[in-house]
Each structure stands twice: as C-alpha cells, then as structure tokens.
C-alpha cells in the first residue's frame, strides 16, 4: 500500500514538472539576452522594455482581450440560464438540452474554425472580424461554461426561491435576493474559463480574424522564424497577471472576505 502511494505521489510530481517546465522556461527566457541558447544565464529586462514600443503586440493584446471578454460574457450568460433550466425543471427534455449544450465539446476546434469561416464567407458574405471570432469561440466556450455551471450548481437547492416566494418575494425579487447571491461565483467561474479558452485560442480564431493580429496568431506567425523574446516577455506578463488574479481570489476566499460556499 505504501508503495503504490509513493509511486502515485511521484507521478503527480512528475506531471507538475512536465506541465510547468515549459512555462517556467518561457519565463526564464523572457529575462535572457539570447533566447536560442540562454545558457549560462545573462539576465536582462530589455525585452520587457521593448514591449512598450511594439504596436503589433498592443493591437494583438487588445484583440485577444476583446475576444476573450466578449466570449466569456456571452457564453457564461447563455450557459447559466440553460443550466438553471436543466437543473430546476425535471422535464423529459432536460437530457436532450444538456446533450445539445455539451455537444460542442466533442467537435475538433479546427473543424469549428473552418466551418465558421466557410459559412460566414460563402453563405453570409461576411469578411472575418473580431465579432465573428467572438461568435465562433462562443460555440465551444458555451459548452465549457455550461459544464462549469452545471457542476457547480448541482448541489444548489432551487427550493430556496420557493421559500422566498412563500415569504412574500415576487419571482424577480426572489432571484435577485436569494438565487443570484448564491450562484454568482459559479457564473464568474464560467466567465473565467471561457475567457481563457477564447483568449488563447488559435485554431478557431485564426480562421475568423483575417489579417488582424491576436496573441496566438502572432505567435503562430512568428513560429516559423523563431519566436521573438518580446513574445516570451508578454506571455510571462499575462501569466503573471492571471496568477495574480487567481491568487488574489484565493486569498480573499481564505480570509473570508469573499464567500463562495455557504455549506459547512
């Protein structure tokens, strides 16, 4: 028994190493003069300073953020109301509705990308733009958001708003004062997950945005002749921002300033 346990621990440690080594490497290289063979280390901050002047990068960052936020909000909204319907109303149709919402999980992104490209261009005559990228990313992101909300709210007691109604709260007031305060963390989770998926997406976004740069398409373009050090720097900054955000969230939760879960 002890044996299997320690093997499991080693496997987990190895998995973390495997998952984080490349990311650590990206961060390491972003501080190095030479990105091709950065040994022995030669630290510099010049790549970060260079970021300030690179207009391409600024545009790409803005585009990626727009796609991420747009997708995050839209898919969390669609997914949340559907998940509430599926969890609350024990209809014969709930399985079918859930299946329809989860189906995009099982479609390769490349296929979603080219399908949207052809549909927009051939049938609707629309050129690609940031808006169509948001719409295309929202398809699969809604599925992920739905999954997150469904898992989070599976234990929510929907009779609480029945209780509120018996005690005199009309439906909207009941939703506002009882349901929403209890489910918003799950909705926020769905927004974050779909934001990250769309923000980092290449295979869907690539076919929608045409010549407009996003961070992943920029990186894709650069891959052929070696990624620039500035991109490493930007990626490190984004990583840092995301980890800071999640870390702050964690601290707020630990200190009790923010409560996600009122169960004991």
């Amino acid at each position, binding site marked *: 028994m002890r044996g299997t346990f320690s093997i499991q621990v080693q496997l987990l440690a190895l998995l973390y190493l495997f998952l984080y080594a490349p990311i650590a490497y990206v961060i390491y290289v972003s501080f190095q003069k030479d990105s091709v063979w950065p040994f022995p280390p030669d630290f510099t901050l010049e790549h970060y300073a260079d970021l300030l002047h690179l207009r391409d990068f600024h545009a790409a960052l803005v585009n990626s953020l727009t796609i991420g936020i747009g997708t995050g909000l839209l898919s969390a909204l669609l997914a949340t109301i559907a998940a509430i319907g599926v969890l609350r109303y024990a209809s014969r149709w709930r399985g079918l509705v859930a299946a329809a919402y989860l189906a995009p999980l099982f479609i390769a992104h490349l296929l979603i990308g080219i399908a949207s490209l052809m549909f927009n261009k051939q049938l609707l005559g629309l050129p690609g733009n940031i808006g169509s990228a948001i719409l295309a990313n929202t398809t699969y992101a809604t599925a992920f958001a739905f999954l997150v909300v469904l898992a989070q709210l599976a234990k929510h*007691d929907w*009779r609480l708003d029945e*209780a*509120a*109604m*018996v*005690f*005199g709260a009309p439906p909207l007031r*009941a939703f506002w004062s009882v349901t929403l305060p*209890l489910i918003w963390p799950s909705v926020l989770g769905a927004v974050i997950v779909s934001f990250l998926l769309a923000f980092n997406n290449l295979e869907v976004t690539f076919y929608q945005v045409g010549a407009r740069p996003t961070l992943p398409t920029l990186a894709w373009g650069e891959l052929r002749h070696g990624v620039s050090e500035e991109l490493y720097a930007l990626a490190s900054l984004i990583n840092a921002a995301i980890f800071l955000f999640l870390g702050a969230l964690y601290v707020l939760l630990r200190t009790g300033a923010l409560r996600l879960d009122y169960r004991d």
Partner: protein
Amino acid sequence: MTEAVLRLEGVTKRFGTVVAADSVDIEIGREFFSLLGPSGSGKTTMLRIIAGLEVPDLGNVRIEGRDVTRQPPYRRGVGMVFQDFLLFPHKTVAENIVFPLRMQGVPPAGRAEALGWITDLVHLKGLEGRFPHQLSGGQKQRVALARGLVSRPKLLLLDEPLANLDRELRKEMEVEIRRFQLELKIPFVYVTHNQEEALTMSDRMAIMRDGRILQVGGKLDLYHHPDLAFVAGFLGAPNVFEGKVTGLADGLAIIDWQGYPLQARAKGGLAVGQRAVCFVKSEKIELFAGTGQGRVDGVLRDAIFKGQYADYLVHLAGAREVTVSGPPRAELFAPGRPVSLSWSAEDGDAFPAGG
C-alpha cells in the same frame, strides 16, 4: 372548531397519471391541524397547493373567505416551515427571520421589534448574527419556525419539519411547536407521516391516502373510532385477526378466528358469512397468566421492557404473533410461559376484508 380560516373545496391535482389530490374538501379553523399519511399519499402536494407553489387542476382554495386559488405564493400571506428548513445560507439568522417582513415593506424599526419578540418566543436570543451553517439542527429548526411566524401569518404550513431531527430533539420540538400554536392562535397545518407527532400536537387531524382524505376528526375520535380499515390499521399499534363473520347483534360482530369467537364493533356494512378483518390496539388487550376460561390461548415468546410499560410478544395458533402493551409484571417476564388474552368487544373494530 371556530370559524374556518382555510377552506379547500374539491381540490384535485394530477401529475401525469398520478393523482396527488383527489377532490379534497377540508376546513381548518384556529387550531392545530395535521395531515397524516404514508409517503406518496399527497399530503405535501396539498401543502404546496395551500402555499400557492402548485395550482390545482380543479377546485378552490379559500383563505379567510377569499378565493386565492390562482394567487401566487407571495400574495397569500402564509408562513411555511420546510422539511430541510431551507434557510437562506448567505443570510444571518436575523436576516433570515426578518425576510418576510422586508418583503412586506415593514420599516427597520418594526423589523427590529418583531425580531426581538420572535427570538424571545423561540429562544434564539444571542444567535442573531450567526449564519445557518454555524447552527445545530435544533437551532436551524427554531430559525425556520421564527421565519414562518414572524409576520404573524394567516396560516402556518409545516412540511415534516421534524423529519431531520434526532429523536430526543424531536420530542422537545413537538412540545415547543404546540406551545407556539397555543400562544399565537394562528392555524397550523402540519404534514407528517409520523403518527406520534400528529397525535402529540394536533387538535384535529386528517388521514390521507392516494390523494384522498379518508377520515377527518379530533385525534381521540380518529384513534378510538376509525371509520375505515386503513385508519384502524394506521393509527396505534394494532393487531389484526382475519376470519368469517358468524353473527351480528347490537352493532357487534362475532368473528370466527381459529375456532375462537372474537367480538368487535361491526363497521363498513359487515354481513354474516362475509370475511372480516378485526383490529385490536395492543394496549386494549388484557394479558393473563395461564390458559383457558374462554380467552384466546397463546405462549409468551418474549417480554420487552420499555420502562413505563412493557410489550409482550405472544405466539397464538396459526403461527400468529400479537403484541400486547401493558404494565410491566414480573411474573410475565418469562418466555415460554402459557398465557391467554381477552379484550372487550368495544375495543375491537371489524371491517369487511379486502376493503
């Protein structure tokens, strides 16, 4: 019963092919009224219809004379105590309790006053700032009751509120809930499948099965004078004897059981020659040491000491086992001992078999 506060008229509700309420008529005044029935008998549906959480297919619900059948729950002014309490987990005890007052637009001063009054009544003083997850089961129960009563509703509906409490706490809360009703004079409609709770607290009660009200009446009346075999079998701990009716006289039937002529009150249009079931509550049977003298003979299998009384398990002819409750007697704590039983004819109730 005083004037009716709640009146159900021909209330019917179907869920698919299941009839949860089958033309139910009830009148409830300023009393403690219990709906008692096995699970699936439709009693919770009845409560939800009264609260406005379900709309009946047919029939009317009247509260204080007004037809509220199609009114949403938030306009009915009733209070409710739910089975798993359903306290709002993100609100403190105080916030939970004053929620109904806030919904009614009671100003803060009035809310504070009512909060003080109700926390006194239900003994929750000092816990106002806690969250539900920081409370014990009994405290949660008190908060749920306080929330249900704080606005002095026209009715308080209680849906198996004690089902999730342990036995000792349940005993304590039964007495408390009864006290609240007596003090506030608000009609309580109490749903339960536990006859002990219903018998302890109610003034009147109704027995439900398959969406139908079988019998309504005072609790003693129901207990001692059941109109139907189901009611006779449901209340108390009755022993059942089945046999052929050999004679009828003065409202009493004689039933042949294993050669013994058992006597019981004849109910449900019993006729000579018909098969009948006879119910006798365990505490109505008298137990004698030794056999003979025209009593039903048996062998004592075991005696179970319960403190104030004892349950005697007696083996009769035909592999029949009956339970007799009575005062603990040392000479009867002797398994294997021959005994005999008898009861007075008025303490048995005989109904046509298969009804």
